[in-house]
């Protein structure tokens, strides 16, 4: 991103954003509610027009419908009555933007769908209605959907939100595996940074119309976080050397938004 800015409804969301993310990096996008984290993700996706600057992904200006980018929007649960199978949802990620009916049986496409479902470990329930599945199961299938085009960049908007602790760890482990083993660049918006913190290569902070980036150890510090959130935040180091971010209850438990 080079000098990028976004204005929405006359308000500057962020401006002068310069960011470089290397291929295969695992990057978290952090910041207070409403700071424009999701907007930044959408700008990288090409859905959100910029008011200034440019965004380049894999050497090209961004545009909608890019097969190289997989996207998982901010939490959406499927209606329990939605009668569509998980595997259909994954398949739509591959060919859903094509016109006409899928009349020709594309064996290679079917294999890609099966492969990516195996990769996320959703084989056991991919043929059930998506609405009947648990949050963690739905999330795995949605990550499969984001990966199915052979994406080399994965944009995840709060993928751990409203999951229980086990599923948070499982999904965060899955994302790390995809990043390390498949060489996929991951840009992840997190509300709670702790589950992903040990794996990150880079942290991007969005706050007060600015975005700063750096290595986790440089940015995740009590003084930087406190000034970014404009509220007391403390960074602790556990006995095995992991960092842990602790904020005041009322500042850290807002409902997820942007």
């Amino acid at each position, binding site marked *: 991103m080079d000098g990028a800015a976004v204005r929405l409804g006359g308000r500057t969301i962020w401006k002068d954003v310069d960011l470089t993310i290397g291929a295969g990096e695992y990057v978290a996008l952090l910041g207070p509610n409403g700071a424009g984290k999701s907007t930044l993700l959408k700008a990288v996706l090409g859905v959100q027009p910029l008011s200034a600057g440019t965004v380049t992904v894999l050497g090209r200006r961004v545009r909608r*419908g890019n097969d190289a980018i997989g996207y998982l929007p901010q939490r959406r649960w499927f209606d329990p009555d939605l009668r*569509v199978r998980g595997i259909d949802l994954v398949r739509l990620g591959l060919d859903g933007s094509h016109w006409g009916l899928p009349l020709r049986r594309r064996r290679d496409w079917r294999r890609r769908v099966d492969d990516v479902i195996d990769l996320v470990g959703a084989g056991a329930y991919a043929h059930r209605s998506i609405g009947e599945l648990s949050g963690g199961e739905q999330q795995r299938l949605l990550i499969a*959907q984001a990966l199915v085009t052979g994406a080399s960049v994965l944009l995840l908007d709060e993928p751990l939100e409203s999951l229980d602790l086990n599923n948070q760890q499982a999904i965060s482990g899955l994302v790390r595996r995809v990043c390390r083993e498949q060489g996929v660049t991951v840009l992840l918006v997190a509300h709670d940074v702790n589950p992903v913190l040990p794996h990150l290569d880079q942290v991007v902070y969005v706050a007060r119309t600015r975005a700063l980036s750096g290595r986790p150890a440089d940015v995740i510090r009590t003084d930087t976080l406190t000034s970014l959130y404009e509220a007391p935040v403390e960074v602790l180091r556990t006995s095995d050397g992991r960092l842990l971010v602790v904020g005041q209850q009322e500042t850290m438990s807002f409902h997820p938004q942007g």
Partner: protein
Amino acid sequence: MTSAASLLGELFEFHFMQNALLTGTVVAVLAGAVGYFVVLRGQSFAAHTLSQVGFPGAAAGVLVHASPLAGLLVFCVGAALGIGFAGRGLDAGRRDESAVVGTILAFSLGLGLLFARLYAGSVQGIYAFLFGTILGISDSATATTAALAAVCLVVLTAIARPLLFASIDPDVAQARGVPVRALSIAFLVLVAVAVAQTVQIVGTLLIFALLIAPAAAAQQVTSRPWVGLGLSVVLSLAFTWVGLTVAYFSIYPVGFFITTLAFGCYLMLRLLREARRRVLA
């Protein structure tokens, strides 16, 4: 056996029955296919309103000495565009849309009241709009319906896959380059045209028998999208054919038989699914 065959042969003897079966068939296919997406998108209320708008539409068509179908099309498509452009869709969910739909519904019923008065007491004509006139469809109306339905089916086939994507997963569909908003407006117009045609068969009041019930029943049976779409069409055809046949040999109206079949089938499949779920659980 021979008597059954000759009885069925009798069905096709009269010209009005030929027209009824032909129109019924094309409309059933269209309603079944469009209805699948209506149910999937949770737009039953919009579809209901479009059918109610058909009532003043058909009355206006007759009042200005055009055909009822012309009036139906103008009013239904107009209402569809209104709902499509006023509803913000995507982010706002269906809440905003349902308020717009409700307002349009009230206005259309008011217009219906006015036109019924202007009709100067022709109860027969009003009855026809409310409950359909399948047994009295002219050759030209049959031809127009078939042509319109063919166009609708071609359009629906073309947009089916992105529409499915946009219906269940609009955010990702948008990111993948699907024109989500344009599709949602185009789809409402398709519903409007399908409704305008279905009104001729079962009337504005019983529209759900062909537009919603087959699709809802199909989705009780399968969660495979394309199988569900096909099954919805098959059920819609079955309700129409059986309804027309039974009605021919009885003194009771077609609309009653079609809706009863649709209701019975939906209820049975729903109970079966509940029972199976309980056994599995």
